[in-house]
């Protein structure tokens, strides 16, 4: 009994602590990579001009605040911590307001409802973190409003707060207005009912008129955005049902709190304990019922490409992955970067040869799309895809990842004044400042100085010497151009040769083996051995003719056994063939 009474006494801190931990687990386990990805979608500049720009549109302040915190999401653990802490702040702000309006033991439970709802919304990248700030400020404003005792001052403050909130947090001013009206109706005595009703009508009329006035005289925007602002949902023409529910949730919980207090059906202890259990239950359900979404896994691979963790990508791929083009692209890229594309491709189950993402007119061009071109040496195409990402973001923000890539490509192309535009923006960021400053210094010193650095020199060496036009269906030709420009372009060689093997184009494969010696492989790529061993069966003498590609005795023995199993009609042998040789080029040749 004492334990229960202690729990009831400290229920709020206990719940906050436990919920914070649950939230942390939830984000860390299932959405850490998506949170981290949010950082790549913006370029937060620590300048007065950037801040002022945000103050010039409705909802801009909360957008600024969210961008400020999101810049720390670069480190996923910080992203998880910040998201969890903010959502717990939302709980506190809600609870604190509810307690002011209507003291009720169930307020704890009710205050968690917006947290649950917005947590779920934030798992979708289209919903903005700015919404959390907007709701917190709204609740603080609402609390301030109810705390003012003098009704004249309160009404005046209400109008000022509504206008301020509209400008700072956009659509949340609707919630504030509704909360003010409800609190007036709930808290006031019967004599003030008429006065409160007049205030409510005036307030609600003002809430309708403020955005109409603002869009006529202060800015131009769609009617929906004039009311809602860009602080909540990235698609400007939509106000999704889920978001509408969250908006309505705040006034709804005030009503719920008021009604359940009036009913007095349940004891306070029961209310407290049931709140505790229910809240914990919801967290448990959220954690246990959620699984890794395909998007989250794609973000995981995308983030590893961003940080160039090639070995980690390969190691992770060996454990399986969903059928997703961005993931296939990341794995192929990692294999090519590590020179393993022609020795490991078939050993990774279900890996498809996705070497680039085709241009799509609708939707945002994925940030990863420019990466394979950049690493291959196709600088203009890398620039094109990075620019396409910038031009196709839904919220019209500059993705920092694309800004870096654009700066790199302009530097490599010798277009320094354009590179400076991006570098100057990056110079104002917290985590890219150092790199941007160094690069600015290098380009100011000139190309000679630039080429002293490996980062630039290597890429420069691989750049094209001949021009051709982009053709998404003829990427292997681009690899041939790259090899003609630099016969040591290992990456291009890997992509080209695997493409030719997959196309079963042996003549071209043998033709381009002429670049093999330049690649200085430590070990002969397995699929080269297997391909030559196979071609030997069709054209005897090939292995001798291409003796510079060493075909091991073990490969010869394997193909003999493979041939034996392949030529029998025995079902068991077919099973053995699959079990033993599914990861070989021969199996691909015959069965895929």
């Amino acid at each position, binding site marked *: 009994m004492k334990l229960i009474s202690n729990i009831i006494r400290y229920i709020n801190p206990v719940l906050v602590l436990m919920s914070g931990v649950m939230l942390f687990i939830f984000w860390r386990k299932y959405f850490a990579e998506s949170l981290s990805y949010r950082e790549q979608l913006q370029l937060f500049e620590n300048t007065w001009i950037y801040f002022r720009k945000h103050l010039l549109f409705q909802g801009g302040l909360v957008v600024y605040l969210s961008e400020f915190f999101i810049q720390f999401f670069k480190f996923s653990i910080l992203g998880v911590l910040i998201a969890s802490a903010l959502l717990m702040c939302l709980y506190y702000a809600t609870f604190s307001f509810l307690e002011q309006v209507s003291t009720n033991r169930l307020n704890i439970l009710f205050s968690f409802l917006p947290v649950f709802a917005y947590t779920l919304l934030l798992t979708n990248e289209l919903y903005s973190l700015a919404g959390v700030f907007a709701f917190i400020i709204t609740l603080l404003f609402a609390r301030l409003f109810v705390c003012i005792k003098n009704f004249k001052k309160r009404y005046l403050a209400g109008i000022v707060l509504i206008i301020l909130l509209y400008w700072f947090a956009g659509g949340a001013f609707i919630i504030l207005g509704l909360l003010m009206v409800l609190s007036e109706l709930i808290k006031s005595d019967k004599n003030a009912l008429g006065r409160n009703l007049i205030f409510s009508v005036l307030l609600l009329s003002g809430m309708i008129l403020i955005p109409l006035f603002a869009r006529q005289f202060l800015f*131009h925007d769609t009617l929906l955005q004039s009311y809602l602002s860009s602080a909540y949902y990235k698609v400007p023409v939509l106000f999704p049902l889920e978001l509408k529910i969250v908006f309505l949730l705040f006034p709804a919980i005030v009503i719920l709190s008021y009604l359940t207090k009036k009913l007095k059906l349940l004891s306070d202890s029961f209310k407290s304990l049931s709140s505790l259990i229910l809240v914990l239950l919801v967290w448990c359900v959220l954690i246990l019922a959620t699984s890794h979404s395909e998007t989250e896994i794609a973000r995981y691979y995308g983030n590893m490409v961003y940080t160039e963790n090639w070995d980690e990508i390969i190691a992770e791929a060996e454990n399986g992955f969903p059928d997703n083009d961005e993931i296939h692209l990341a794995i192929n890229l990692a294999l090519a970067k590590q020179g393993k594309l022609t020795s490991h491709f078939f050993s990774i189950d279900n890996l498809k040869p996705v070497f680039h993402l085709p*241009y799509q007119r609708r939707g945002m061009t994925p940030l990863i799309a420019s990466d394979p071109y950049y690493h291959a040496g196709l600088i203009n195409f890398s620039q094109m895809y990075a620019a396409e990402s910038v031009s196709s973001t839904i919220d019209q923000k500059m993705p920092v990842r694309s800004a870096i890539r654009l700066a790199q490509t302009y530097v490599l192309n010798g277009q320094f004044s354009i590179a400076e535009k991006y570098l100057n923006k990056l110079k104002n960021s917290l985590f890219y400042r150092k790199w941007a400053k160094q690069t600015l210094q290098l380009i100011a010193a000139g190309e000679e100085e630039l080429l002293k650095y490996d980062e630039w020199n290597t890429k420069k060496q691989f750049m094209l010497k001949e021009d051709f036009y982009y053709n998404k269906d003829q990427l292997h030709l681009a690899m041939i151009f790259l090899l003609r420009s630099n016969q040591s372009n290992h990456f291009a060689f890997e992509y080209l040769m695997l493409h030719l093997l997959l196309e079963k184009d042996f003549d071209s494969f043998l033709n381009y083996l002429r670049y093999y010696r330049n690649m200085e492989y430590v070990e002969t790529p397995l699929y080269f051995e297997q391909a030559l061993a196979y071609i030997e069966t069709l054209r005897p003498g090939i292995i001798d003719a291409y003796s510079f590609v060493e075909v091991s005795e073990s490969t010869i023995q394997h193909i003999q056994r493979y041939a034996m199993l392949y030529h029998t009609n025995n079902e068991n042998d077919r099973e053995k063939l699959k079990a033993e040789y599914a990861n070989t080029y021969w199996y691909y040749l015959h069965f895929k």
Partner: protein
Amino acid sequence: MLILTGIIYILNRMKKQSYIFLLVLLLALSACKYRHNAFEVIGKNRMPDIFPVLHQATIPPNIAPLNFMLNDSCNSIEIELQTSEIFLVESFIGNKVKFSQKQWREILNQSSGDTLSITVYAIIDEVKHKYDPIHLYVAPEPIDDFLVYRLIMPGFQTWNEMGIYQRKLSTFDEKPILNSKVMPGTCMNCHSFAGKESEHMMLHLRENFGGTVIKTGDALKKVHTKTEQTFASAGFPYWHPSGKYIAFSINSVRQIFHAKGHVRAHALDMKSDMAIYNVEENDFFTSPVISSDESFEAFPCFSPDGETLYFVTAPAGELPRDQTEMKYSLVAVSFDPHTGRTGSRVDTLISARETGQSVSIPRVSPNGKLLLITQFDYGNFPAYNPEADLYLYNLETDDYYALDKVNSNDVESYHTWSSNSRWIVFSSRRRDGLYMDAWIAYIDEHGKGHTPFMLPQKDPEFLKHFMFSYNIPELVKSEVNLNPYDIAAVARKTEGEQAGYSISH
């Protein structure tokens, strides 16, 4: 440390009112322009390295302040501004020179037809570095009051933010005519006016709520210009001076992207024809003279009297194979404004066969004497051809020459005349090879082009950070009285009228 201790001591002794007084004083001091008494003057014997470049530019008497910045860092700048009537000295903190609009207007009012010299002193560590003076020539003729342009990121195929804006040239005021905020997901382009009058305007909308919006007086309508007989919607427009017709080229445009080099893309006109739209009757008319299978016709332009239609044409080719062989000639055909019909004889003004070059975007000066074109190696979209330059064709003497003082080593592309035929505004990539800027140049009574200058900005550093290009500059005499919401309402809420089509043989 001693000073800091002193300040803290004084602050501790001050009352609240004194704090306010101190704050006001500090604010007042910081608002004042910086005055610096330098000890030493060093002559640099060279022009100052400023952005934007201004030296020897001819400027209109009604242009906004030509603010500029020194590219070298300095503590402050002192300038001596001198004409035959004026001499004044101004100081500015930092490396930017920003004139007050009122003062600048007064200077220009007194300098019409005169030379304006600006001597710059960069003050670094109490030393004045004196540069050779910048000379500006203030022409007596004003430029039209408003410039309309599209702002768009220089991307490849996609876009997410753009807008058509009007800028009052005597100030820095810019207003949207339509932008992506008001119409998200809609591409807007090819704004065009009849005879520099903002009363008659049109623009195309693509993708969401697509159509062509036409403004005649206060009336707005939306038209669907793709007909059964045409292979695409109407493209590049030119209004007849009467406001009754709009000549369009209908183009099938494809982009190609280069793997190497600074020229990252080219736009190919795979096929093009022309048609004349009757605004009142909502009907297209064409004839084999301006729409033929054997040739591509594009970029129409009516003469100011409305009796001649100029355009560019090239024999049909297969693209991209024949890309570098596509060279367009400048031709003219008569036009009867009463019947809305073209003549049957085509006169060649500039033959691509003779010049070995291609011409595009013909624009006749409002006085009917000069024809401004862009000339380049091949094709009819000069935006990605670095060799593209502006040329003038004298319609009275048939002289034809490059505007050497106006041109640069990079792209000069779209252009527009001022209604008094003395000013042109053109887009150019000369600053960095990528971003299109609006440049303004004076054309004197002999048809000679003078040194141009960039569209002035309040903050001279603005363009260094701005991520948008100035696209399709069009000068108009007065403000476009069109609310973005009105255009959006017509585009969204009306179905749009389907245009008709007829062919004469």
